């Protein structure tokens, strides 16, 4: 096994991106993700890559759009308010079918909000953010190791399906250090015949574009895109199940919330409560099969989130409301304690959701 080193989650993303072949990073400073930019600023010039601090989030996502269209593995990173500014570019990137990786190390909102960890951009990441019919692959790391592995995965999926992969992390995972090792895994790359390279007078010109003034053409384009999304939904959902074999109650949580929830599950098991955890690793595509299967087994669900209750809507949707779904949440930068989650589990056992 490769050597284990201690690394911050944000740095792990940056290092993994470089290992994935990303040589173009465009960003703008914002807490709590600035370590990514700092790492890139230090490393990129030494390996023939490009780090450029843009004048705004808007400019940085459009530089990503340009570099992606030019066929590069490219990324940007930001935190919640900055992602709102990038929303326009995300929509154009989706509409033009070019691949990119965008990292959101979430902080509390709305507005300027706060700088402490949050998961309140779940809706924005999984349901839109920008305008128009589109999806992004949304990956939710719960450890520093996953910050790295999902970054690499994110680049591969983006290239494979010609869409944006978003790493939806939070301030805790971004700032914390954990041991991590980088295995020398083979990184998949994909041909990009559509890329802007100059025609070299050898082929008709490539056009990267999201404008279709004829409604029937735009409709066809969107339908084609959604067929691709369907393949993603069928093949790329990832999740972790923990102590679910005999579970009568199921906690659903992602990212940092799932780690708190795991502690609570262990504590509840010690009290004899049969409870397990489903941790979505992809938030889109949502692990609906796992949830639906659990709905036939358990007596109820508890969605643990760092927001006012966003993922709970998907939990209800994909369990087809077969069983009650409770919410255990904190927001604004607050994190529920394992005891708070444990209390919610105890309540569930009493039939209180």
């Amino acid at each position, binding site marked *: 096994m490769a050597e284990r080193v*201690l690394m911050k989650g944000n740095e792990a993303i940056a290092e993994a991106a470089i290992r994935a072949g990303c040589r173009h990073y465009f960003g703008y400073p914002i*807490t*709590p993700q600035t370590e990514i930019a700092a790492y890139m600023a230090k490393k990129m010039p030494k390996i023939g890559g490009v780090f450029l601090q843009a004048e705004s989030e808007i400019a940085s996502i459009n530089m990503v759009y340009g570099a992606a269209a030019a066929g590069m593995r490219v990324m940007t990173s930001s935190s919640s308010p900055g992602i709102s500014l990038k929303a326009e570019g995300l929509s154009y990137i989706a509409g033009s079918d070019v691949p990119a990786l965008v990292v959101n190390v979430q902080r509390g909102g709305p507005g300027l909000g706060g700088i402490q960890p949050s998961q309140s951009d779940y809706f924005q990441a999984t349901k839109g953010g920008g305008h128009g019919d589109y999806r992004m692959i949304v990956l939710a790391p719960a450890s520093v190791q996953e910050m790295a592995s999902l970054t690499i995965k994110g680049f591969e999926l983006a290239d494979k399906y010609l869409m944006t992969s978003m790493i939806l992390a939070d301030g*805790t995972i971004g700032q914390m250090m*954990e041991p991590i090792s980088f295995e020398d895994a083979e990184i998949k790359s994909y041909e990009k015949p559509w890329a802007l390279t100059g025609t070299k007078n050898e082929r008709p010109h490539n056009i990267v574009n999201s404008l279709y003034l004829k409604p029937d053409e735009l409709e066809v384009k969107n339908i084609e895109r959604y067929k691709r999304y369907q393949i993603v939904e069928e093949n790329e959902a990832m999740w972790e199940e923990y102590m679910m074999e005999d579970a009568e109650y199921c906690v659903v949580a992602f990212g940092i919330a799932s*780690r*708190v929830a795991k502690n609570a599950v262990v504590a509840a098991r010690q009290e004899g409560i049969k409870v397990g955890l489903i941790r979505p690793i992809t938030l889109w595509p949502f692990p609906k099969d796992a949830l639906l299967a659990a709905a036939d087994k358990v007596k109820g669900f508890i969605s643990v989130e760092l927001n006012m209750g966003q993922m709970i809507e998907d939990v209800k949707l994909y369990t087809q409301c077969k069983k009650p779904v409770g919410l255990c949440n904190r927001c604004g930068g607050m*994190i529920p304690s394992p*005891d708070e989650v444990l209390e919610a589990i105890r309540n569930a056992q009493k039939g209180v959701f």
Partner: protein
Amino acid sequence: MKTTQILIAGFGGQGILFAGKFLAYKGLTEELQVSWLPSYGPEMRGGTANCNVILSDTPVGSPIITSPDVLIAMNLPSLQKYVDTVVPGGQIYVDSALIDIKVERTDVEVFYIPATQMAKDNGIASLANMIIIGHLLQNHPELSFAGTDAVVQKLVPAKKAALVELNMKALLLGKEYKG
């Protein structure tokens, strides 16, 4: 299963995060599972700073510490804020050069170390943090004192190599401190 949750708290500039990093790296070399979580944001610029370090022989769940096994308090507000969160039977390390009150709880073990004064007296003014860590290592066989120099070398940037020796001096001062 053995998990030690260590909360280090004090002012920005006291090396709170560095002390935590040292413990995390030490844990890593002892082949433990570790996590290190700093406070971040504007309070880091001269306000309060704290750091959560978890060392465990099983994978770390939540990296956020609500009930520490060990509290290192480097200033009075930190001691007052966290003293009651320490688990019964836990340990509290107090920089008694900066904190002139005593811990009233009787269900915890308290170590008073005038670390800031000791650091000043020994010409290593900024290393009170490592004096306390040196003392802590004595009480934690899962970490042990052996191999600390390699960890310090890993943490101190090459440009500041002179600091390695000073950190080792601080760790030894703490180790040998007899209350």
